């Protein structure tokens, strides 16, 4: 519930507790073939209502961080906290958006949007009304009884967002939420996402491969090292521009400098990020 962050703040004598906290987390995967250290001594703090983007080389453990925060996996050692509570399993605090919209084709848009509430047995006349209002607000009102196959990629991703927000999470985890979209749609949806995140006062942790996107959307960009992953550097983003929207923020004079700094960090390992050179040209 949205009071979660405040409750945590009351618990913490020092004032505002962090919305997300990883403390010296090790994550080691075991398979028949090998033992893989995905995260080593990873620590990370995200303040309430902060929008943090994470970039890093392929396979450095970005998705692992999100899975830990969502409570889908348990750390090998170290602790993971969300809204001041130690994570022991999936909780109502967290909403998770994946790269694919994962809409179920046998459910209508409204049916998809209600999925989380159904799982949590929280479907009531009021909660349905709230979800339908959200669908309306995000331009999906007239499609609520349509099946996902009739919607465009951008609309599908917005429907997935409504599905995530329907359970009223405090913390939103985004794992390359836009990378399946074409460039045009991607810019549009990032505008929507940004507006909605800010309006709802959510704490966001977003993984992306796109440095420009990270800078354009977030308050802070974290760069991860190669596997086993840990935070290599943190870049607070302060952009002077008129329109505080992802597209507007791209015009800020400081944008280029941030881009180059982060790009240098990423390639310092002697390990280029697959999609970055193409973005550097734009």
């Amino acid at each position, binding site marked *: 519930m949205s009071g979660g962050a405040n409750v945590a703040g009351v618990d913490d004598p020092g004032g505002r507790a962090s919305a997300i906290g990883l403390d010296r987390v090790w994550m080691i995967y075991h398979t028949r073939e090998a033992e893989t250290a995905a995260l080593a001594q990873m620590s990370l703090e995200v303040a309430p209502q902060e929008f943090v983007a994470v970039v890093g080389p392929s396979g450095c453990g970005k998705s692992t961080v999100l899975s830990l925060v969502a409570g889908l996996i348990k750390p090998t050692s170290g602790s993971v906290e969300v809204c001041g509570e130690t994570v022991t399993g*999936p909780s109502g605090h967290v909403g*998770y958006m994946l*790269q*694919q919209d*994962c809409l179920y084709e*046998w459910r209508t848009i409204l049916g998809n949007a209600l999925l989380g509430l159904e*799982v*949590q047995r929280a479907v009531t006349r009021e909660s349905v009304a709230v979800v339908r209002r959200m669908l309306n607000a995000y331009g999906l009102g007239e499609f609520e009884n349509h*099946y996902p196959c009739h919607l465009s990629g951008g609309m599908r991703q917005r429907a997935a967002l409504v599905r995530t927000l329907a359970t009223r999470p405090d913390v939103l985890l985004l794992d390359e939420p836009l990378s399946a979209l074409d460039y045009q749609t991607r810019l549009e949806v990032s505008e929507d996402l940004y507006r909605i995140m800010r309006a709802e006062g959510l704490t966001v942790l977003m993984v992306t491969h796109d440095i420009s996107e990270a800078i354009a959307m977030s308050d802070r960009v974290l760069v991860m090292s190669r596997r086993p992953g840990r935070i290599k550097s943190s870049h607070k983003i302060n952009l002077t521009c008129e329109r505080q929207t992802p597209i507007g923020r791209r015009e800020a004079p400081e944008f280029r400098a941030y881009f180059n700094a982060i790009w240098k960090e990423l390639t310092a390992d002697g390990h280029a990020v697959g999609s970055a050179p193409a973005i550097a040209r734009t």
Partner: protein
Amino acid sequence: MATQSDRPRQSREHEAFLSSLARRRMVVSVARALILAAFVVLWEVAARRGWINAFVVSQPSRAFATAVSMARRGELWLHLGMTVGETAIGFTVGTLIGIVAAVLLWWSDLLSDILDPYIVVLNSIPKVALGPIFIVWLGTTVTAIIAMAIAISVVVTIMMVYVGFRQVDPDRVKLLRTFGATRLQILSKVVLPASVPVMIAALKVNVGLSMVGTIVGEFLVSKAGLGFLIVYGGQVFNMSLVMSSVILLSIVSVLLYYGVSALERAVMRTRG
């Protein structure tokens, strides 16, 4: 305006395209009908002229007459009903048991690991070889025939549906887990609904398989059904009875198959 003069020209071309499609479809249907007619006529003529021995291969007019007289006496419906009923029960129950077994295997990885070799062996046994066992256990009854029809379809269903369950997109399952879903909710909200196409595909396969099981069962034990008519006709050298039963059997199996296809289309219409 240019666009106004362009449009009708395009639509004329499209009309021409559509009518060429329609012509083609007509050619196909006519050719199909002609092949069937030619076969029936040739068979009839060859039997009448004595090119082939009508006693051994029968002839369309006699097979038809046999079917009509059976229909008049009311026997035909009994035999048809028996075969259709046994087959329908066979593939429905076989599919259901198969789905339940697949759910159990999906539920427990350990169980599926343990049972894996047994399923492989069960799958490779020619199920009709089990016929005599069912007769000993269940007697020369309709139950034994239905058991045959079920046995022949159940293992294939288990394998098809279990593979379908395992191929459900892991991200869709992950999504549900982020909401805190229990295993039962994962089963009911994503694994089963996502596997509906696979289950219908299994049902489609099972229509044919259960028919084989039913006919073999009727060969072995029954006193009624198309399989019985075929065996009986063979024993008394009434080839017209055999031929008319075989023809009816093919019609019935095609109708059953189309029935399941119609079900499939109805389900898929909501899915895009």
